[in-house]
Structures are given as structure tokens and as C-alpha cells.
């Protein structure tokens, strides 16, 4: 017993850990069961009530692959040839021919595109420099530059795709950059290929939009509020503005990054920066105390409880304004966002929305300091001032004087002229940088910008600056994407296959378990318990690695269970042999385990070798198979060698008559 103590403790720890990791999966399953009983409004309320917990569970549970759940799987390739076409300067017939030839050859081979282009051009007596170089560039410079452009294109494409998928509102999308220029997008539960195709393959639209005047924005919000509250009174007075000003703020939370748009290398800019009133964004939180003297309904004196406030001002309850900011940016918690989105899609709301105001969300939610995440709902002017096509380059940098991250943006001549006019007319106002209807930044214009060189300041960190650079470039040079693989699995097929697969697997397992008990008696019974623990371990490991269970994954599971049975058979046959030559039970068990060990080790190691290689070279489904196989082998080694042994030892020690058939 003593020599087994460490092993027993280890076993219990592993079992406990497995249960701990599997628990969210179980809980999530319970939630879904409850949810399926509810319908219509009830299910929405249920979802909203448990939003935070559900989100957490979704992250921690074992995910089901698309083949089990239904959904779409799309592989996108960045069209490098199209990109090269867009980048070329002095296009002529030779280049067109070469690019056509290149297109045909890149579809077939994986050799470096630039190398291929170079040799094709050389064959026609041309060099890269003729189309892609500046006067002083060497060929190597140009190659490096093109390489960087191609790499940049994939980053832009990933950002654009992520942005769109996020807006589309798919639960748990997976967007992965694979290899050199490939993006894999998995959209569970999506069944309309047409939508997805439009979503993914259209060209990205980058726009500069003025942020709507606060008066105007608040007026529109008031209208929406009235509709929601059922108030028929649509006459608007200055009250609405005033009231929003009088909303007191209880918690002074973190500033959202304050961005300024300045003329690059403008020496006076430094001084100007200080003179501009910072648009600190303070957020009203849900505390009732801060709502007490809000008079949004025109009633400034009466004290309102939270419930009353919610009833009278459903919009402003969800979308909080900051009275001291001088802006009409609405702050919406992560959990409230879906509700606000639904409101904005209501036909009666859409009907009153004037054409000169549109709403757009901020890209990132920011933490208010207490763990609550807020998205900013911007009210923007309907018409775009300028599109991203005029941007010729964007570069994130560290400003040497202030040592803060900045993004420098250059525009072409045509854009620069417009930009000067726009910035000149809107000094101290904000211009939002909007990609596919998501606001990435809304810097304040500090002065008229002539010459087309602008600097955007106020990024919180280098990553944020880098992201803005990617976004600006996405407008300048869209990364052309093409769909090269597309699979959609209807949920009905998914259900069919998961049901058939799981039922048959369980049936097979039960048969095997029964057989083991008949054949090996006590030993078989112990082996069956070990099998159950084995399944528990495998699922536990999968949950802790946040792995996805696919159909081939289930096949891998079955194979491992087969191996688990084999391991026990090996051991028991050895024990029987030893018993057969007259050894006492205890000795036979010891020798049996010892002698079976080398075969068990060798067979498991070879399986690990194949598993690792499969994982390395396999794609999607095969990787899923390899992963469960590997997890299974590891779990199996432990259960067969440690757990089975302990159980048998304990039974023997307790004087139970252990039989091996």
C-alpha cells in the first residue's frame, strides 16, 4: 500500500483535474439544454442574463468541429499576382503577358513568386526595376520591398477578414493565417454560402468620415429613445442636450486614447497640441447614484431609480453619454452591445434615422478599469469625406521628440488637395477612420493639413499604431483575396453523422467492455474502469488544450480505446502465463506487468511517432485525428501501467479473489 501512495495521489489529482477541465463543457451542455426549451423572447432574455457566464463557458468548453456542428470552412488565398499588377508602375504589354504566365505557374507550383517573376522578366530582357524600382534601387532592394509588400498584404487581408467576420456576428469564428499567403476561416453554424462569399471576398472599404456634431447626434439618439420608451412626444428642445450635460459621472474611468491629427513636421504643432482641449472620455457606469439627477425625459428635479430610468430612457440606459466630454460618443458595455445592435436594426428606428447620421462601433472595447469592457458607439456623418484610395502610404513609427507611437500617412496629390480642404474646414473636429463600417480611430484635426502628409498621434502602444497602419494600407492597397477551398456542412448532415458516429461508437465500446468482463473476469472489470478513467483523461486533456473535437477525432478516440484494451490484454495474457506455470497470484501479477512493459512501451512510442508526423503534415481533419490519438496514447500509458496496477494491488491486498479468466 505504501509504495502505491504516491501513485494513488497522482491518480486522484489527475482525475480531479480532468473533471475540473471538463466541467465547463458539461455546464455549457446544460445551458444549451435549458435554452432549447425556451422560445422567442424568453431565449433572448435568457441569453442576455447569462451572457457573461456563457461567454466564459464557450471559451473553456471542448469545441465541436465543423463536421459535427455544421458551418462553413473557407480557405482564402491572397492573389499575389493581382497584387503585383496593382503595384507595378509602368505597365506595358510585356508585364501583362508575364503576369498572365505567372498566374498559370503559381497555381501549379510553390516556388517563390518573386523568383519566378524575375526569371520570366529576364527571359524577355526586362528586370524588376523596370516596373517596381526607383532610380537608385538595386535589384535586391526591390526584391526585399516586394517581399515585404506581399507579407504586408496578408496581414491586411487577415485584419479585413477578421473585421468583417466580427461584424457578421458569428459565434466563435476561427481565423487563422496559414503558411505564406493563406487564411483559413471557420464559421460554425453559418449555412448561407452566398452571404459568406460576399462577406469575405469583396474589396475592403476605408473611409474618412466626420464625427457628427454632438447636438445633432444627441437629437437622433433622443428620437430613438422616444421610440423605445413609447413616448410620442418627438418635439425636441435644447433640453436633451442640457440634460446630457447634467448627467453626473460617478466613476471617473480610464481615458480612451486621445488622438490628434497633425501636420507632419509641424513645429508649431507641439504647442497646438497643448491648447487643444483633450477629449477625455469619462464613462457613466450603471450605478444608480449617478442616474439620480438625470433628467433625460425632461424631468430634472425628480429623482429616478434605476428601474424608472431604464423604463423612461431605454436607449440612454444602454448607451451612456459623457456629459463633460463635449462629444456624443456613446459607451456601451460588451454585454449590452447585441441589444443596441438589435435596436439599430428595428424598422421603426431605421425610419427615423436621418440620412446624415450613421452609427458605427469602435474596433476595440476598452477596459473601464473595473473589468467592464466598453465599446464606443460613434455617431458619424452619413457621407464619407474621402475614401482610402487616396492614401499612398502609411507607416507606424515612434515619434523621436515625444517618444510615443505615431502613424504617418501620405496621400496622393489629388487626395492631398481634398484633405487640405477637409481638414481646413474642420479644425478641432474629429475625423473617424472607418474600415468596413468599423471605427478604428477618431483623431481630432489640429490644423489644416496641406501637402498630404499627416501624422496621427495618441496611440496607446505600438501594437495599436501597427494596427492603424495596416488598416490605412488596406484602404490604399486592398489585398485581393480569392476563395480556393470552400466547404459548407449543413447542420442536418452534421447532426446525422454525429448521432450515428457517437451511437455506434458507444455501442462498440459497450460490447468490448462486456467481452472483457466475460473473458478476464475481475481483471476485465478493472480494465473497464480504467477505460472509463481513460476517456475522462482524454476529454480533460482536450478541454485543457482548448482542442476541437472532430469526427476523425472521434475515430482517433476509438483507436486509442482499442489500444487501451490491447494494453490490458497484453498484461493479462502475461499474468495468465505466469499463473499457468504455477506462480502465486501476487508474483504472477508483478512479473506480468514487468514483462508486458517493453511491448507496451515500444508499441506506444511507435504510435507517438506516427501521431506526431501526422500532426505535422496533416491538415484539418487529419490533425484532429492525430491530436486525439496523441492525447489518448499518453493517457493510456498512465492508466494501463499505473491505475490498473494500483487497482489490482489494492484488491489483492484486501484479500479479494482476483481472477484473470
Amino acid at each position: 500500500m505504501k509504495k502505491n501512495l504516491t501513485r494513488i495521489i497522482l491518480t486522484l489529482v489527475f482525475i480531479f483535474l480532468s473533471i475540473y477541465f471538463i466541467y465547463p463543457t458539461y455546464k455549457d451542455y446544460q445551458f444549451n439544454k435549458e435554452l432549447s426549451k425556451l422560445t422567442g423572447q424568453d431565449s433572448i432574455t435568457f441569453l442576455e442574463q447569462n451572457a457573461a457566464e456563457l461567454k466564459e463557458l464557450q471559451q473553456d468548453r471542448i469545441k465541436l468541429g465543423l463536421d459535427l456542428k455544421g458551418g462553413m470552412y473557407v480557405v482564402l488565398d491572397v492573389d499575389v499576382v493581382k497584387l503585383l499588377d496593382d503595384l507595378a508602375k509602368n505597365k506595358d504589354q510585356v508585364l501583362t503577358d508575364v503576369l498572365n504566365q505567372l498566374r498559370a505557374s503559381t497555381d501549379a507550383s510553390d516556388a517563390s513568386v518573386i523568383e519566378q517573376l524575375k526569371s520570366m522578366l529576364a527571359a524577355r530582357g526586362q528586370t524588376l526595376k523596370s516596373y517596381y524600382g526607383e532610380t537608385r534601387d538595386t535589384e535586391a532592394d526591390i526584391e526585399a520591398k516586394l517581399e515585404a509588400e506581399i507579407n504586408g498584404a496578408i496581414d491586411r487581408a487577415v485584419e479585413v477578414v477578421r473585421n468583417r467576420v466580427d461584424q457578421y456576428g458569428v459565434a466563435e469564428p476561427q481565423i487563422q493565417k496559414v503558411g505564406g499567403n493563406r487564411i483559413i476561416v471557420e464559421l460554425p453554424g453559418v449555412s448561407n454560402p452566398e452571404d459568406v462569399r460576399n462577406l469575405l471576398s469583396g474589396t475592403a472599404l476605408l473611409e474618412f468620415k466626420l464625427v457628427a456634431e454632438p447636438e445633432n447626434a444627441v437629437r437622433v439618439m433622443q428620437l430613438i429613445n422616444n421610440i423605445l420608451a413609447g413616448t410620442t412626444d418627438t418635439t425636441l428642445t435644447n433640453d436633451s442636450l442640457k440634460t446630457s450635460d447634467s448627467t453626473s459621472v460617478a466613476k471617473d474611468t480610464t481615458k480612451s486614447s486621445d488622438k490628434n491629427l497633425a501636420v507632419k513636421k509641424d513645429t508649431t504643432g507641439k504647442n497646438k497640441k497643448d491648447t487643444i482641449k483633450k477629449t477625455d472620455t469619462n464613462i457613466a457606469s450603471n450605478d444608480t447614484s449617478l442616474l439620480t439627477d438625470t433628467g433625460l425625459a425632461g424631468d430634472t428635479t425628480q429623482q429616478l431609480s434605476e428601474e424608472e430610468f431604464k423604463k423612461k430612457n431605454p436607449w440612454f440606459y444602454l448607451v451612456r453619454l459623457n456629459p463633460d466630454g463635449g462629444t456624443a460618443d456613446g459607451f456601451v458595455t460588451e454585454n449590452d452591445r447585441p441589444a443596441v445592435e438589435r435596436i439599430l436594426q428595428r424598422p421603426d428606428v431605421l425610419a427615423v434615422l436621418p440620412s446624415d447620421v450613421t452609427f458605427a462601433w469602435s474596433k476595440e472595447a476598452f477596459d473601464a478599469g473595473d473589468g467592464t469592457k466598453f465599446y464606443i458607439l460613434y455617431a458619424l456623418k452619413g457621407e464619407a469625406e474621402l475614401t482610402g484610395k487616396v492614401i499612398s502610404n502609411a507607416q507606424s513609427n515612434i515619434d523621436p521628440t515625444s517618444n510615443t507611437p505615431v502613424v504617418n500617412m501620405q496621400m496622393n496629390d489629388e487626395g492631398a488637395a481634398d484633405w487640405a480642404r477637409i481638414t481646413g474646414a474642420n479644425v478641432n473636429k474629429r475625423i473617424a477612420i472607418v474600415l468596413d463600417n468599423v471605427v478604428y480611430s477618431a483623431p481630432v484635426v489640429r490644423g489644416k493639413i496641406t501637402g498630404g502628409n499627416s501624422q496621427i498621434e495618441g496611440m496607446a502602444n505600438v501594437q495599436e499604431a501597427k494596427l492603424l497602419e495596416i488598416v490605412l494600407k488596406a484602404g490604399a492597397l486592398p489585398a485581393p483575396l480569392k476563395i480556393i477551398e470552400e466547404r459548407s456542412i449543413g447542420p442536418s448532415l452534421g447532426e446525422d453523422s454525429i448521432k450515428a458516429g457517437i451511437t455506434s461508437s458507444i455501442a462498440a465500446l459497450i460490447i468490448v467492455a462486456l467481452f472483457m468482463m466475460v473473458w478476464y473476469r475481475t481483471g476485465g472489470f478493472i480494465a473497464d474502469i480504467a477505460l472509463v478513467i481513460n476517456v475522462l483523461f482524454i476529454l480533460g486533456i482536450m478541454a485543457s488544450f482548448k482542442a476541437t473535437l472532430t469526427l476523425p477525432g472521434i475515430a482517433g478516440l476509438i483507436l486509442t480505446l482499442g489500444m487501451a484494451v490491447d494494453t490490458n490484454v497484453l498484461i493479462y495474457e502475461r499474468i495468465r502465463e505466469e499463473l499457468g506455470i504455477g506462480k502465486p497470484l501476487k508474483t504472477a501479477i508483478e512479473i506480468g506487468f514487468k514483462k508486458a512493459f517493453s511491448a507496451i512501451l515500444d508499441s506506444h512510442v511507435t504510435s507517438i511517432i506516427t501521431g506526431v508526423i501526422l500532426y505535422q503534415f496533416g491538415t484539418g481533419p487529419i490533425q484532429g485525428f492525430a491530436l486525439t490519438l496523441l492525447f489518448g496514447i499518453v493517457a493510456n500509458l498512465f492508466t494501463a501501467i499505473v491505475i490498473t496496477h494500483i487497482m489490482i494491488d489494492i484488491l489483492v491486498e484486501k484479500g479479494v479473489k482476483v481472477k484473470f479468466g
Partner: protein
Amino acid sequence: MRIFENTNYDFLGKRRKFYFLSLGIIILGIISFIIRPIPLGIDFLGGTEVQVRFASNVEVGEIRSIMEGAGFTGMEIKTMDSDRDILLRTPLQAEGTKISDDISTALRNGISGNTFEVLRTDKVGPKIGEELRRNALYAIIFSLIGILVYLSFRFQFIYAMGAVAALFHDVLITIAAIAISNMIFPGLNLEFNQTMLAAFLTLIGFSVNDTVVIFDRIRENVRLYKNEEIESVMNKSVNATLSRTVITGGTVFLTLIVIFIFGGEVLRSFAFTFAVGVLTGTYSSIFVASAVVVDWKSKIEKREKAAKLNKKFQTAKVK
């Protein structure tokens, strides 16, 4: 309950007969394969595939004429599990979902009084198929190398070669079995896709596993019976592990039969391939892996004897 206890079959004595048996099956498979090659799935071939489920049964012939009317010639059309589930496949691909949309539009316009839902669409570009083929090949080659190296290290190079020979044998036999059953039961729709690839890789794993167990016993017995002929030591080892071989092979085979029958269309090709693999993997551990080692060892021994004799002869001559 127990079976095959203290058996003493002369497995390896009959190895030459079994060489011919294996060879025969493989040749039969090659012939079937030539007459009717195993179709490559869309994963490897590229193209567009649409699976639809009709409200009531339909005739494949009717659908074929509709598709041909819509300009899809040479399309592969077959029923899946029932006469309501139809799989349509064409090597054509176009930008986006154009082809699959065209197919469903043509179906919708062509069939009256029967509605359908699209269960699944797959589109695979030629580059992906090419890549998959290459990766699959790499996976198999590297697995073989990995196994060869590990077994050489744990046993001897000759044993490792025996195990790898058995693997080749198993893969060939399984391909033959698929080709033959496609000839006899065309309704099985066995095709070479990612799932079947996974099954092949699994059967490689199983086959090695089985071989390793027998080799493990040989390794042990070679030390025990130092003075016996290798053939008799091997026979002893195969007989000693026979009970385990039958039980393990049997339970896995049983599991796969259940999955083959009830597991649904997706797991079917996996179950079939692996079930064949279990049979041949078990067989090959004895009649290929061990047999190759016996033949090779005796050849080496003969050569060594001959060399010794030769040496004696030469030294005698010089003297």
C-alpha cells in the same frame, strides 16, 4: 475462458505458401484497380461537390439528364445512404460559389414537385488537392522512416526492415481489398479522400503495434533459447502471443464492424479500410514481418558460412 493456450502451430514453416497468397491478392487487386481505379475524392482531385436531400425519392437518371440539360456534362451523380440523398460532383470550379449555386439552380428549375435542401457543398482548388497529396505522401514516408529508425534502435535493423515490409504489404493488400470490393459492391462508394487517408495512417499504426508485440516476444525468447534455430524461436513466440493477437485483433475488428454498419456514411470508409487493415496487419505480423526476418537471417547465416568456408579454402590453398 481461454483459447489458443500452449499451441504449437508451425506458422513459419508454411511461410512460402502465404507469400503466394499475399502476392495473389495483390495481383488480383492490381487487376481490379486497372479495370476500375479507386476514385479520388474531391480532397485530392479538386472540384465542386454538392450533396442534397430531396423530400422524396428521386431517380439518378432524371437528375443526370437535368444536369446535362444545364450544361454539366460528365458529372458524377450518385445516391448516398438513401434514394433521397444525392451527391453531385464535377471537376469544374469557378470563383466563389458559382458552380454550386448553378447546380442548385439547375436542380430547382429542373425538378418539379420535389423540394430539396443542400446538405453540404465542398469546393477544393487544384492547389489544395496537390498540396494534400504531397503532404499525405510526406506523412507516410516520414512515418515509415520514423518507425524504421526507432525499431532499429530498439531491436535490430533486420527486424525494422521486416516491420516496414509488413507495412508495405498491408497498404498494398488494403488498396487491393478496396479495389476488389468496389468491383463487387459499387454501392459502397469507397473513394480515396482525407478520411480514408486517416484510416491508412491508422492501419499503419496498428500494424506496427501488432508487429512490435510479436517482435518483443521474439527478443525475449532469443535470449532464453540461445541454441535454438531462429525459425523455431519465432514459432514459439508467435504461438505464445497468439491468444493476445486474436483477442486484440478480434475486439478492434468487432468495433469497426459495428461502426461500419451503424456509423453513418462519413465513418464508413474509415471503418472499412481500417477493418481490412486489422486483418492484414495481424496476418502480416506473422507471415510477412517475422517471415522476412527468418528468410533474411538464414540468408545471412548461409552467406557467412559460405564466406567462412571460402576463407578456409583460400587459406588452405595459400599454405
